[in-house]
């Protein structure tokens, strides 16, 4: 009866599967993941199978030659589509990663520091937040003649950061007041370790969901910038730019516009479904 006698091996609840595993059980997430992987695969490998060269003129402009016809300069549209996703993909992905990292850092530090620091950081954040995302990017881009890829990545990242920071701070606020964080404080853990080991691992589900959503926005943002004529190489194929270049021929050769639009749309749907799936898992975890 006493506690000295060895207790029988307790029946332990099954291990909590990781967010990713839980998400995999969701149709929404798996469909989204499949679509996204297909698009990414297409962007990476399609150029090797393209029927023509990226800037090769294959016929008269807006003709029906080839599978999807030709564009305003007589390039093959299918070839252009096959080549044109690389810039969007790279800038969107790295821009999102940068924005997430920056935003999470700002939000978590603000929540953990609290008080005066929180106030200053978040008010500054609000100032940046007041600019519409695309406006902030345009403001800088108009000053630069030919943006390089890293400037675009930086712009996408910085324009995401304050939005991510808002969310990260909200999530972190609920965690920094929990007893296990206070326990780490009482032990005298370094502040950086408290953030990295105690706070961050408990925010991964909402952050992953936000990341997926931000990726969707990034694709749209980079596409829009391309449409407005901001891309690393004006001669290269770029889905966003293709829409702008070929919009005059919309009635005679709709595929030159529709093909890149569809690619962007499918990509966005894929990443958005993924984000949605993770968000549902994250929400269920909280209940």
């Amino acid at each position, binding site marked *: *009866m*006493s*506690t000295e*006698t*060895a*207790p*029988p*091996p*307790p*029946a*332990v*609840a*099954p*291990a*909590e599967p990781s967010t990713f595993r839980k998400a995999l059980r969701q149709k929404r997430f798996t469909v989204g993941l499949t679509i996204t992987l297909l698009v990414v695969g297409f962007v990476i490998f399609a150029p090797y199978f393209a029927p023509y060269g990226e800037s090769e003129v294959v016929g008269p402009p807006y003709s029906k030659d080839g599978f999807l016809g030709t564009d305003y300069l007589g390039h093959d549209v299918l070839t252009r589509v096959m080549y044109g996703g690389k810039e969007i993909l790279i800038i969107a992905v790295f821009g999102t990663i940068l924005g997430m990292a920056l935003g999470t850092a700002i939000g978590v530090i603000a929540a953990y520091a609290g008080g005066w620091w929180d106030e200053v950081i978040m008010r500054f954040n609000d100032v940046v937040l007041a600019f519409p995302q695309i406006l902030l990017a345009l403001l800088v881009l108009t000053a630069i003649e030919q943006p390089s890829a890293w400037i675009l990545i930086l712009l996408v990242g910085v324009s995401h950061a304050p939005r991510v920071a808002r969310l990260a701070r909200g999530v972190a606020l609920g965690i920094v007041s*929990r*007893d*296990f964080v*206070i*326990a*780490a*404080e*009482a*032990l*005298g*853990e370094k502040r950086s370790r408290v953030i990295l*080991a*105690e706070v961050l*691992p*408990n925010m991964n589900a909402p952050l992953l969901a936000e990341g997926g959503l931000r990726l969707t926005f990034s694709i749209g943002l980079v596409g829009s910038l391309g449409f407005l004529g901001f891309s690393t190489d004006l001669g290269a194929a770029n889905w966003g730019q293709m829409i702008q270049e070929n919009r005059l021929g919309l009635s005679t050769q709709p595929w030159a516009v529709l093909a890149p639009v569809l690619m962007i749309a499918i990509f966005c749907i894929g990443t958005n479904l993924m984000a949605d799936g993770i968000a549902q898992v994250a929400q269920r975890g909280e209940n």
Partner: protein
Amino acid sequence: MTATTHDTAAERVPTGGLVVEDLGVTLTGRDVDIVDDIDLVLKPGEVVGLVGESGSGKTTVGTSLLGYARAGALISSGKVLIEGRDVLKMPWKEVREVRGEEIAYVPQDPASALNPAIRIGKQIVELLALRDIGTTESRMQGARDGLAEVGLPNDDEFLSRYPHQLSGGQVQRVALAMAFLPKPKVLVLDEPTTGLDVTTQAMVLETMAQLCRTYGVSALYVTHDLAVVANIADRVAVMYAGEIVELGPKESMFRQPSHPYTRALLDSIPHLSQARALTGIPGRTPAPGARPHGCRFHDRCAFVVDACKESVPELRPFATDHEVRCIRAEEIGTWDMSRGTVPDADPDKQREVILSVEGLNVFYGRKRVVYDVSFDLAAAEVVALVGESGSGKTTISRSVGGLHKDWTGTISFEGDALAKSARQRSAVNRKRLQYIFQNPYLSLNPRLTVEQIVKRPMELFGIASGKKATDRVIDLLDQVALGPRMLKYEANRLSGGERQRVAIARALAAEPDVLICDEITSALDVSVQGSIVALLEGLRRERGISMLFVTHNLALVRSIAARVEILQAGRVVEAGSVVTVMETPREEYTRQLLSKSPSID
């Protein structure tokens, strides 16, 4: 009183009560029973206490009486008869009428049951309108009468308050008033006093018992607290793993408990009148679907024989009105209430003070919450800080532990004055003073494994690292009665009691001299509390660790502490050795606390 209320009062002739027959609740879609084979009779005017630990299915039984099962569960068999009519067979419209009018329910957390945006008076009037009681003019008066019955003010000022403007006890009494207003025949109370202070609890219980007797209402009082049941119930039903294991009149249940589980529960409860060596029940409550065959308690029972594992024992008569579900009830001897009593801590023992608090004032912003508190703690001694919520007991412990830094005064540890916050203190002081939190569900990082959690203080204070640290973790887990199997588990896979053991192991990993225990058993079941207290007592004796033990439970203080500080509104009102303070309290407040504390002795 208006004519209408007179009429309804006159109509209420105590009849019927409630009969539960062979009730079973299963998980939807799976053939797994949450509770089964529940037979229970509530006679008119009778209060039946339904006692069980978490996971026993007591709340499921409670809500089943209203024909309700929570999402994911299904009432699969049995009858709930009120005046011969089966609640479970009624069409839902009729059930809606029965709920509230004939069978009322008082939830555990009434604050969440009242609409925070509607004034109290209006909520009660709405209830009366919904139940078609009285006329538009008389309903406001009805609300006033209802509030008067539960001892609340009923002037316009009170009626126009919002729920958040009431105290916890007042909200609970409003909930009681609302349950009683439609004059139900049966009342189901689901742990209505959990989370209330002892004085408020005593008041609510008194009100409830009085109303039940006046109106001949039968009540099912669902609780985990045997001591409360001992104070208010006429009969007691003890549940374990979805079954009633023992059922009988209160006197007979506490004089001769016959089921080993009931006895184990009683053994784990501290008494007000005498210190006891508390014991827990080994193992943990099986979840639905994982319950053992045969007698469900057999794998944790001290009296188990092979026959127990073979078939499910029937609930059978043992004495007059006293039934038990154990095949060996006659063979296991009699039970003695004074079992396990030990001498109180010696008040005249030599004390070697290691921690002293002098003139402590604590603030939250501009608000002062602790006034000039002084006490000290000697080596291998347990000092209890006792008080109701808002008395500042936790605030004091947090200031001592360096978790709250807005204080003035001196806290010195072996002569060194301690800095205000843990970060400003030296590593040695941080190491020697360890804090254990109230809620083990919040105090362990759910993402880390038990090994990582317990190892961290050793690495941080340079006590051990690598393989040596892992060995020490296994050692510590063994000391807190957890196996090495736990090492790789994440904290969220453990039960509450196991988590609290891990939290204790983490504190011990730093090799502390003082443990600050902030209500560390209040979130746990009594049997788990018993084993945790036994563990702490062992640590104190073997390692000479001192403890500052914060609690609101005076009976627990008697069993664990040597000295006690009684706190009221941020001031120490009485202090001294436990025996002196509890046997011969000088202050009115202490006497009041003692008399209101529920206890089984």
